[in-house]
């Protein structure tokens, strides 16, 4: 078993954390991880924190997300140029969805029916109807689209483009762009928060998160990060997720091998937590007491106790873990 220890974490305190942290997972709660360079998924049992299944996928799986009832898993099989639809019980691929070329990341609309897919090589966002299995729209966006988000009311979809350095705002009614807002270099991930009134966009090379007011699309705040002993150039915010109360955002900082805990009201960074190498995306368990981060270079997942903000375990998964998704 591998453990990533913080500089001041002794084995004794870690052991205490392991025994004292009380989590009561629902039965069969699982975290699914996509392994980009192994063409597999690793399924982690939240109760035991062990990998219990490894499932083969198409080539280069990255974004993964479950349908609202968790009956199917959607997988961006980037190099197979398709979105695969998997039965999570059997691990069988039920069918493929037309996705446009090189699907990297996607988001499922609240209607549980439409996938908004970033086509990284084509500068396009593709909208697919998962029921008719047809492409509904293709929207020209900036170069290397990646980050995808949809507002809680379903009215706005966001694509961020890595080389164009923009968040593109899509009206989901017309499937047309209605705004394009600049952010710092290489935006990677986007999320709506605060009841859908705020949009957060991370910029990997810029080293920032830009917070937008959704009503006006105006920039409201910019969050910067500083990890002691690491040159600012290597502190690169990528994936992030909000806690259940939306009070805290956990932000993966890529090759700095840390995640940050950000106060979502004051936009101040409260903590940095050491995890595995090149931390990329993450997801919580059902009650959001545990956070699972994908560490691409070290090929593992760090489990962080949300209350104490301590890493409690590292779980070896496949090569280059990328996406994470909860299956309760």
């Amino acid at each position, binding site marked *: 078993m591998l453990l990533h220890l913080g500089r001041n974490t002794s084995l004794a305190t870690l052991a205490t954390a392991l025994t004292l942290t009380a989590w009561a997972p629902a039965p069969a709660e699982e975290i699914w991880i996509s392994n980009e360079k192994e063409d597999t998924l690793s399924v982690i049992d939240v109760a035991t924190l062990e990998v219990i299944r490894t499932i083969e996928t198409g080539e280069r799986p990255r974004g993964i997300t479950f349908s609202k009832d968790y009956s199917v898993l959607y997988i961006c099989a980037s190099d197979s140029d398709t979105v695969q639809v998997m039965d999570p019980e059997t691990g069988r691929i039920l069918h493929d969805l037309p996705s446009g070329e090189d699907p990297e990341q996607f988001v499922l609309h609240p209607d549980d029916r439409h996938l908004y897919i970033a086509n*990284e*090589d084509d*500068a396009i966002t593709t909208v697919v109807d998962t029921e008719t299995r047809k492409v509904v729209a293709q929207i*020209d966006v*900036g*170069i*290397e689209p990646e980050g995808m988000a949809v507002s809680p009311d379903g009215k706005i979809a966001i694509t961020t483009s*890595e*080389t*164009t*350095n*923009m968040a*593109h705002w899509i009206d989901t009614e017309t499937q*047309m*762009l*209605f*705004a*394009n*807002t*600049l952010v*710092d*270099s*290489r935006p990677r991930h986007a999320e709506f928060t605060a009841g859908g009134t705020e949009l957060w966009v991370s910029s*990997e*090379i*810029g*080293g920032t998160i830009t917070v937008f007011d959704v009503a006006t699309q105006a920039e409201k705040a910019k969050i910067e990060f500083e990890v002691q002993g690491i*040159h600012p*150039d*290597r502190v690169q915010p990528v994936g992030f997720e909000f806690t259940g109360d939306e009070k805290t955002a956990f932000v993966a900082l890529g*090759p700095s091998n840390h995640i940050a805990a950000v106060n979502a009201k004051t936009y101040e960074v409260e903590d940095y937590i050491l995890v595995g190498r090149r931390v990329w995306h993450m997801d919580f368990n059902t009650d959001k007491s545990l956070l699972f981060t994908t560490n691409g270079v070290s090929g593992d997942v760090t489990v962080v106790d949300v209350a104490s903000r301590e890493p409690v375990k590292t779980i070896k998964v496949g090569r280059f873990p990328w996406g994470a998704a909860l299956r309760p």
Partner: protein
Amino acid sequence: MGGFALKTGRALLAAVTLAAPAAAEIAVSVHYLQLMVEAPPTLSNLDPVPEDLGIAGATVGLKDNATTGRFMGHNYELTVTRVEPGGDFLAAARAALTETSLIVLDAPAAAQLAIADLPEAAGALLFNASAPDRALRDADCRANLLHTLPSDAMRTDALAQFFVKKRWDDLALITGTNPADQSYAADLKASLAKFGLDVNSEKTWAFDADMRRNAAQEVPLFTQDLRDHDVLLIADEIHDFGRYVLYNTWDPRPVAGSEGLTATAWSPVVEQWGAAQLQSRFEDAADRGMAPKDYAAWAALRAIGEAVTRTGSGDTATLRAYILGDAFELAGFKGRPLNFRPWNGQLRQPIPIVHPRALVAQAPLEGFLHQRTELDTLGLDEPESHCTAFSK
């Protein structure tokens, strides 16, 4: 346009108006001026020089800019002028400068200086995408000439860091007779000195025999009297003889420098840090791998594009001030933001250390520290550079 100037292409990407542009319409015109040079004869015909070397990189950079531009109401245009060897490149430069003050130069150092010193170029912003010469970043620098291609000194510093890290302290050197070989060897030796190393034995390769037929006989003999070494360095920047040295040496030792393990601005084997996307965009466009000069030309176009996007201006003085300022950052697919050294106009950048099949390391290597940025452990640092043009 001079009699020898040959206008080969004009790529105009029309803007598509989508939503409300954030700023007023701006038209940005960039000129790519290439002075063609006669390649020196080499033994092997294995590596033909692509016809569109450099130009293909600029074209991909233009497309990248244009995609961003259409959301902003910014139009980008690239004009390419190629001047035959011996042609009147100054006339071509003057003609280009009547149309735009943003020019990417693909020419030897002396020609670049002559262009930078034209009265018409006084307020221009020129980008050196081809000349690795130290002098251009040193006493011969010009305030209107920025460098997106790394200097040879940056490349040799990268190798020296690698040798220190590996504790490969004993080094031997074989140098060719071309001036580019000599200049590279001088930079190599300066870099070794900078990082506390030196070469223990040195030979000049001055044979005119065709090594393709007898390398197995000649090279062991030639390398037999070198002192014990961990690595054999080759200074053969025209790629004449170096390729025949590998695996034919008297002692079985790795080869580095111009052959074997090389430090370079860019290579098709770079795939980390999102580089796979740039490589595939380039390969789709040019039908070949992306070379260092393509990368430098791409970076020049992208630096212009980034400055236009962030300032909302097409004014050259405004762009120059932004590009040389603290706020500028270019996502150059090398794992960290790139910006320009304000004292000599060199684009700071990590240097991939590669062999033909994979990336081996990327300098600056861990442990080589610098008070400003680790990137300044590569190439001429501020106290070493005799460049004063930027301080005026």
